[in-house]
């Protein structure tokens, strides 16, 4: 089972991706999508050493909700900062110590940071324990780090890494 269907989640996502791509829902395309969804992970399984497991689907939904809200919030914030003028910005680099250990969770965290209010992830330390983040305007770097850890890292830890 494991060898024939290495990544069930990837299979489902690829099938859905295919249906979106052709923009129609017909039996033929469902079959084709399923076939592609099976074939591609099968052919590329050496590149995916670890099995992706979502331990808390509900937490994932909740996380996505926060993510969407924060994208909107971040866009308004940055738009406002740009309009207010560059002179009053207080940019800074902050270091976020990571408790996440898996590559997938870390890349999702970095991605989220880049899309949400006023921060862009700039560099991941070689030992994968620290993420350097550039922020466009901050008064309190420590509060920002605490917010990132509590708002994004904790849920990701729960979704992808927590033991049952």
């Amino acid at each position: 089972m494991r060898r024939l269907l290495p990544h069930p989640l990837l299979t489902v996502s690829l099938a859905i991706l295919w249906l979106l791509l052709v923009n129609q829902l017909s039996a033929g395309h469902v079959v084709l999508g399923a076939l592609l969804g099976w074939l591609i992970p099968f052919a590329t399984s050496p590149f995916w050493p670890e099995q992706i497991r979502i331990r808390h689907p509900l937490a994932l939904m909740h996380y996505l909700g926060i993510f969407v809200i924060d994208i909107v919030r971040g866009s308004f914030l940055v738009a406002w900062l740009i309009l207010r003028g560059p002179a009053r910005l207080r940019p800074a680099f902050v270091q976020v110590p990571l408790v996440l250990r898996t590559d997938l969770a870390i890349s999702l965290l970095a991605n989220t940071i880049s899309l949400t209010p006023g921060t862009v992830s700039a560099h991941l330390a070689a030992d994968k324990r620290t993420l350097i983040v550039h922020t466009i305007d901050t008064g309190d770097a420590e509060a920002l780090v605490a917010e990132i850890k509590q708002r994004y890292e904790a849920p990701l830890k729960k979704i992808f890494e927590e033991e049952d």
Partner: protein
Amino acid sequence: MIDILLSLLILTGAIFTFIGSLGLARLRDFYTRLHGPTKATTLGVGCLLIASALFFSVRDEGVSLHEVLVTLFLFITAPVSAHLLAKAALHLKLRSLTPTLKEGDDTPAHL
């Protein structure tokens, strides 16, 4: 009714995209400039895509969900390119208004 909604979405999208580009021109150093295109533009493009999905779903039969894909790929690629740009800038030690990290920390110096 739907026309008004569509116009609002397109207008909002255009305004945010414009502000994002304005940021690119107006902000003062490389790192702060990165923020304009990654944030404000995300919402701008998002609004335009919602408008597009709505328009084609109403006009043609069946829902048009192409736009979901565009959003998905945008959300995957925009942060990655921003990250790589920032990384490259750190590596080249670009002139910046941002105070750098303290010595002895895990500074980008030993990249």
